[in-house]
């Protein structure tokens, strides 16, 4: 069997296929969020809701033999790449028949079959993608590796070192920075110097910026980078902006506070006021500086445009397809049914 050469592939985005991918991911993650709230998924849960446009934009270009180095929110990429949703759900529920036997959990999802490896260590996707790409370059030229990470990871040495390594060795890597402006719970602009595109270019890695909330724009940017990597021209860096609709992870205290001020405020406000008034410590001016930082974080969280329609790649992609209502309804019915079936099947042995 011969691989499709890049000239044979139709280089036009299939809006229907892309919408099916991101909708599937969204419905899947909404289901996992409910399981998490019910206490059936333990620990932290970082959703990819809001970044589906980016994930679909790259995954649609991948073929057999391509590798993915994923971060701590890897479910969406695995799902779109073709991993059985039931297997991921069983893994998140910690079941022995889950994707990783219940041993990995949501931050540590692996699929050998798909050459996909996740990590909960920020920035670790860089070295992994470089290594996958080295194997590709050596063993099966034409295959590529993708690294998916946030802009917070761009301050992690190992990621920048990997970009330089990929540049020096002309490795077929697509470095994809899913830029939502937040490094965990800190505004990235407060802890980042310079410009990320210039940073990549300074390492000899061509850099492209696009709106990751628009799946076709993300797809187009990825197309350029993937072609470059496949044809042996080396790595690219993509900065694709997005908004994480649920913030860094589920249950983040500041977001909870904004959604339920009366319930959450006393737990934060009372000790804070006590500390501000307590004797011993800085001058009033410095203390007010501290208050400003805290208020800044609250206001930034408040002002973060999480739920706006324009930030939601699913709603944006759907809008383009609305003209053909019958086809849209059929697609949505099919995707919904697939996820519902996976959920039902995954929950079979879980007590209500």
């Amino acid at each position, binding site marked *: 069997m011969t691989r499709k050469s890049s000239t044979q592939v139709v280089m036009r985005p299939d809006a229907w296929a892309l919408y099916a991918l991101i909708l599937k991911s969204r419905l899947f993650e909404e289901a996992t969020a409910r399981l998490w709230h019910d*206490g059936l998924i333990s*620990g932290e849960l970082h959703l990819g809701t809001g970044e589906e446009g980016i994930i679909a934009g790259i995954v649609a270009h991948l073929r057999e033999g391509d590798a993915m180095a994923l971060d701590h929110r890897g479910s969406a990429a695995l799902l779109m790449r073709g991993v059985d949703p039931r297997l991921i759900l069983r893994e998140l529920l*910690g079941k022995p028949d889950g994707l990783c036997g219940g041993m990995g959990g949501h931050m540590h999802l692996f699929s050998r079959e798909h050459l996909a490896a996740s990590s909960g260590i920020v920035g670790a996707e860089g070295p992994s993608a470089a290594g996958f790409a080295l194997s590709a370059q050596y063993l099966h030229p034409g295959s590529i590796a993708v690294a998916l990470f946030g802009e917070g990871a761009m*301050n992690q040495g190992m990621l920048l070192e990997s970009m330089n390594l990929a540049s020096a060795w002309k490795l077929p890597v697509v470095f994809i920075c899913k830029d939502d402006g937040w490094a965990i719970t800190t505004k990235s602009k407060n*802890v980042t110097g310079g410009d990320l595109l210039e940073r990549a270019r300074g390492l000899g890695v061509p850099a492209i910026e696009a709106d990751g909330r628009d799946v076709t724009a993300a797809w187009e940017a990825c197309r350029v980078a993937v072609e470059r990597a496949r044809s042996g021209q080396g790595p690219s860096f993509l900065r694709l902006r997005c908004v994480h609709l649920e913030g860094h992870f589920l249950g983040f205290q500041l977001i909870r506070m904004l959604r339920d001020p009366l319930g959450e405020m006393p737990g934060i406000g009372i000790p804070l006021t006590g500390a501000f008034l307590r004797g011993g410590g*800085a001058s009033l001016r410095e203390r007010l*500086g501290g208050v400003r930082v*805290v208020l800044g974080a609250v206001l930034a969280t408040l002002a973060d445009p999480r739920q706006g329609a324009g930030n939601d790649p699913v709603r944006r992609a759907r809008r383009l397809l609305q003209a053909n209502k019958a086809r849209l309804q059929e697609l949505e019915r099919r995707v919904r049914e697939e996820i519902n079936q996976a959920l039902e099947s995954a929950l079979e042995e879980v007590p209500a």
Partner: protein
Amino acid sequence: MRKLSFSQAIDDALAQAMSADPRIILFGEDTPLIRRNLLVRFGPKRVRGAPISESAFLGAGVAAAMSGLRPVVELYMADFLGVCVDALLNHAAKLETFSGGKWRAPLVVRTPCGGGYGDGGQHEQSLWGWLAHIPGLTVLVPSTPADAGGLMLAALEQDGPALFFEHKLLSETWLEFLGSGGRRSLQFDLPTAGVKGGVPEKWEPLPIGKALLHREGDDLTIVSVGVGVHRALEAAKRLGKEGISVGVLDLRTIAPLDKTALCEAAAKTRRLLVVDEDYEGFGLSGECCAVVAEAGIACRYGRVCTRGSIPYARQLEDEALPGVERILEAARKLTDANERGERRKGETQE
């Protein structure tokens, strides 16, 4: 006596030290948010947020400590030490030797550690043995609010690099942040005496390298740190009802290790069980055995530790971590008279 939670006690001791010593500053990822109560009291110059650049800010912490500051560098999790251990291994720990004893780095690295809330094996490790293996580092693992505050103050007052481990099951702040996320649907096996407890009105530094005997016993001594101490106390109580008298020694400090207390306890009970949430091989449990053997104390020995990478699935995780049931089983084995008889018989037959 006032009562504080584990993390409140640490922050309270830290605040007392910060009021007295302007050289103490804090930084780490999200520190302004997580230590917001210190931020509004001491200001943004002293409580700083760092980028996700552990190698840079921990390494900077070492040199800042070499040049007049007393930084408390906070890492999100002990697991992330993997990213930046060079700053400790090759720099902070070596400085005193390399400078001919003329230069030390008074740095405190504060980091949450440990499992029991289902976050997976890259976010629940203990790793104190790994750090204590490196000569030149002080390694502290408190188990109660009073010890946590007292050891934090001690760490701030000494002149070398110290690691301060804050177990996530003891810290309601971290457990809320990483484990529950505000969910009421979850249950954790919390060691209540470690989560909240009496603390002094004014903090005094605790001696570093001094173990605390929580409970006297005649038949067996269980040695542990952190959450393991509470698991051991629970086991000791239950073993007491079976007629087995068990002492519990809380090492509190791993490096330096209180060899005197360890040997005294081992010599008294002649049976030693080390409970360590860190990995079993090449760590604290083996070190305790070596110390006792080197002292020439004839002693039966056992250990209950974490054996492999920590599984994500809650039940498997509970089985992997040193819980009360595993401790009971090991303790019964060590104190079982029949088995000792069997063993002696086996030896004579050889």
